[in-house]
Structures are given as C-alpha cells and as structure tokens.
C-alpha cells in the first residue's frame, strides 16, 4: 500500500493536500447556511440506546421511591394520556405540539415561498426589501418573535360583521410561522440559485418568457431539491414548539409540569417525567429526520 503511495507522489501527480476537500466543505457550509439545515446523520440503534436510558431512569426512580406513595412507573402510566392528549382527550398536550407545528409549517411555507420568489425578482426594491425581511426574521431568536406575537397580536379580530377569537395556540402558530417563513424563503432562493445558469439561458433561447421559465423549467427542478431541507425545517420547528409553554399554551411541557405538581413535585419523579418528555419528542422527530435523509439520497441529482 505504502509502495503505491510513494510511487504516485514521485511522478507528476500532486500530493493530495486539503484543497479539494476543503472547498467541498466550504460549499457544503454555504449551502447549509442558505438552506439553514444541519444534515442529520442518524442510525436506528440510537433509539435503542435512548430507550435503555429511559428504562434506567425509571428503574432508579422505582428503587428510590417511598413504598407508601404511588410508584414512578404507575404515576407515569397514569399521566401519559394527560401529557399526550390533555384532559378528556381534547387536542391539547403533545398533540397540540403537533398541531401547532403542522399549521406553522403550512403558513410558513406559503409565506416563505412567496418571499423566496420575491428574493429572485428582477425589481431591485422588491429584491432588497424581501432580503431585509428574510434576514431580519432569520437572525432574530425564535423566542423573541414568539413573545412579540403572543403579546402584541390581538386576542380577537373584529371584521365588523364577525368577531374571530384568536386563542393562544393560534398566536403561537403565527409566532412560529415567521422564522419558518424566513428560512423557507432562503431555501427557495438557494434552490433556484443552485441550478446551473445554462437552464435559464437555454429556456431563453427557446423563447420562453420569464414567467414560463420560472413555472415550467426552474421551479419543477427546484421542487425536488427543496423537499429534504423543507422536512428538516419541519423537524427543527417541531423541536421548537415546547417554547410556547413559557406563554402558558397548554402543550406537553405545560402539562408535564402540571402532572408533576399534582403528584406533589416528588424529586424522584422529575427524571422519569422529563426523560419521557424528551423521548416522545424524539420518537416523533426521529423517523422524519431519517426520512429526509432517504429522500435526499434519492433526489441527489448530478448535473
């Protein structure tokens, strides 16, 4: 092996310095910055390890618990439906986390695609303005955006003939959709820019006008590229939804705290409940993260 190597170096072939790989890493980071995603690298056995950790926490809590009180495992079983669905199976608790993430993604995507298309507009003011909006919402902390909407958005909207109440979770949806919008906008811009310019030029030479080029040539090709980062953003959003428990939205963290309170805040229950909370979030996001990797591999087109 070493013989081959030295033989290769001594002739005209250059020693492999960092240059090509470093360039690749840099462009990868540029793409990640544009798309705002981290490429998750996950393996199925990690889930088994997490489950073992959970079992360990429950076991140690069981051993610590006083005999006369309800055991940690029984307490967890008793409160699980409450944490997952809220009282009387109303859609609160963890299911509200999912609902919030779903709607925030929906609104964020619609607004984000529009903003992203504005970012590639030919009109300079539109391009500049949408760029500023995008950068502003991308670089502000999620919690600050959430507080802004929660505190400044009206609790009901009076349209003259009908009054629409805006409950807290709906405000949270709007608060979360703002950063999602900005990031999706960057995803769209990045995807459009990642297409080789030959696509635009050949469309022009075939007498497509700009709108036709966008709708019939550019965007269909971008669509595939946007899906993996889009799913990745959904994961990030789903993991951010517990933030709204600060504002008292009745989601999983709020209910976990309430359940712990109802059990008298016993210290040995805390690890069990919090690890359970981490675990249900993990169980939800993990398959989605895996799926985005698979799609990415599938859609990887070489141009």
């Amino acid at each position, binding site marked *: 092996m070493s013989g081959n*190597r030295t033989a290769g170096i001594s002739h005209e072939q250059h*020693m*492999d*310095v*960092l*240059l090509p*790989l*470093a*360039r*690749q*890493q*840099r462009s*990868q*980071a*540029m793409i*990640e*910055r544009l798309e705002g995603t*981290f490429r*998750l*690298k*996950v*393996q199925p056995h*990690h889930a088994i*390890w*997490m489950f073992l*950790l959970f079992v360990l926490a429950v076991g140690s809590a069981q051993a610590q618990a006083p005999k006369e009180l309800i055991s940690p495992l029984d307490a967890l079983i008793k409160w699980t439906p409450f944490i997952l669905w809220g009282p009387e199976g109303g859609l609160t608790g963890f299911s509200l986390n999912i609902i919030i993430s779903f709607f925030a993604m929906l609104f964020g995507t619609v607004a984000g695609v529009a903003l992203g298309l504005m970012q590639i507009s030919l009109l300079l003011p539109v391009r500049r303005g949408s760029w500023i909006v995008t950068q*502003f919402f991308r*670089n*502000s*902390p*999620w*919690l*600050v955006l959430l*507080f*802004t909407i929660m*505190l*400044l958005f009206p609790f009901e909207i009076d349209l003259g003939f009908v009054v629409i109440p805006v409950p807290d979770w709906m405000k949270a949806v709007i608060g979360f959709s703002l950063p999602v919008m900005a990031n999706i906008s960057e995803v769209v811009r990045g995807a459009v820019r990642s297409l080789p310019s030959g696509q635009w030029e050949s469309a022009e030479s075939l007498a497509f006008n700009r709108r036709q080029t966008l709708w019939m040539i550019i965007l269909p090709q971008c669509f595939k590229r946007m899906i993996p980062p889009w799913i990745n953003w959904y*994961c990030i959003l789903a*993991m*951010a*939804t*517990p*933030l709204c*428990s*600060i504002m008292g939205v009745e989601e999983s*963290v709020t209910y976990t705290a309430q359940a712990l309170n109802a059990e008298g805040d016993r*210290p040995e229950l*805390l*690890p069990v409940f*919090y*690890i359970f*909370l*981490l675990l249900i*979030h*993990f169980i939800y*996001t*993990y398959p989605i*993260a895996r799926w985005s990797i698979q799609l990415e591999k599938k859609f990887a087109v070489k141009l």
Partner: protein
Amino acid sequence: MELFGDFFKQLYDTTGWNFAVFYDPFEWDRFVAAMWTTIRLAIACLIFSLIVGFVGAWAQGAKSRIVRNVIAGYIQFFRNTPPFVQILFFYFVLGNLVPTYDAGGYQEAYIGSFGWAVISLGFFAGAFNTEIFRSGIEAVPESTVEAASALGYTRLQSYIYVIFPLAFRVCLPALNNNLVNLLKTTTLAYGIAVPEMMYTANQIWSDNVNVPEMMIVLFIFYVGLVAILVWGMSRWERKMKIPGYG
C-alpha cells in the same frame, strides 16, 4: 449621554413612545446588566461548546467501540430533542442532585441557573460542533496524518498539533452557522430564570407597560449581536487562512 436620554424623554412626552431603558437610570442599569449577562452567557456557551466539540470529535476517532457509541448516542440525543426541554431537564432534574451550601440563611446550589444554562446549551451546541469538527478531520488527508506519525507524534499529539489546526480551518464556515444558532438559542435560558436580555426585557415591560418599544430594542439587540458575530468570524476566517489550504 445626557442628550441621548433627553431625546428619548422628549420622545416619550411628545409621542408616547416609552423607551424607558434609555432615560430612566434604574431601567438603564437593569438593561446594561442584562446585556452583560447575555454576552457572558453567549461567550461561556460558545467556549464550552467548542471544548465539547473538540473532545467529542477526538473521541469519535477512538479505537474503543464503546466510546464511539457513547459519543454517537450523545449527538443523536441532543440533536433530536427540543433544546428547551433539555434546559428544563438539566436544571430541574440534574440541578436537584447538586450539593448546596449555606448562603446566609438559605441554601444555594453550587451550580446556579446560569451554570446550568451554560452546561445544557454548551452540550446542545457541542453535539453539532462534534459533527462539524469530525467532518473537518475527515477532510485532512491521510498522508498528512501518516507523516505526523512518522515524525514520532502520538495520536493525541498529532491531533492537537497537526490534524485539528487544519481541520479547524476547513470547518470554520460550518462552525460559523452553528455559533450564530447558539447565540439565538441563549434566549431559552429565560425558561430557568437566568436574568439575560429576554428575561429582563420581560420585567421591564411589565413595570413600564411598553411592550412594543422593548420588542424593538430586543430585535435590534439580537440582530446586532448576530451581525457582530458573523462579521468577527468572517474576519477571523480570513486571518487564519493558510495559502494553498482552501
């Protein structure tokens, strides 16, 4: 400074825009203290996460399977669970196990909310840093590593003196992204009552009923901080550049 305060006082009197933090000395002191706490928190988390990333990336290349699996599990756990729940977990669960000392009549834990915020956010960002550094290390060609060992470097020495300095330069752009993210994530320390910017802003608008004004201040503060970080990192990146190494 006087003029500055007078301007905002006048703004309040004429338009009702109450930027109390700029003319009321009490609020100004609170604001500056919070600003300082946020910056300290960000820097502490940043350094801690870089250390975690440095050690983690080294351990990922370890010979022992168990060490590698533990690191992989750590990365997956911190990347796929909500950071906010992680902070609560660290503070309420692990914080319970920390011994306390007598702080003049009441019991104070050795690690306070600030310490837990640094630890949990550091581990959160460290999980990402580990991955980033690892990809940087992979970019270092094997012949360089072999050359280092041929010169008598041990595995640790070649990591510290040869591999890491090269890998670090390669992964600076990715690191940049992560650190910006970390800076924004420091607001989560609000959840465990660290008196940082978000938390103090909440106190200030509760006392002065000036939510929109404080929101503007908050946005300017955070976007400005991110801009400074990005600018500083890109300067640093340029400075660290070795000719011929990307």
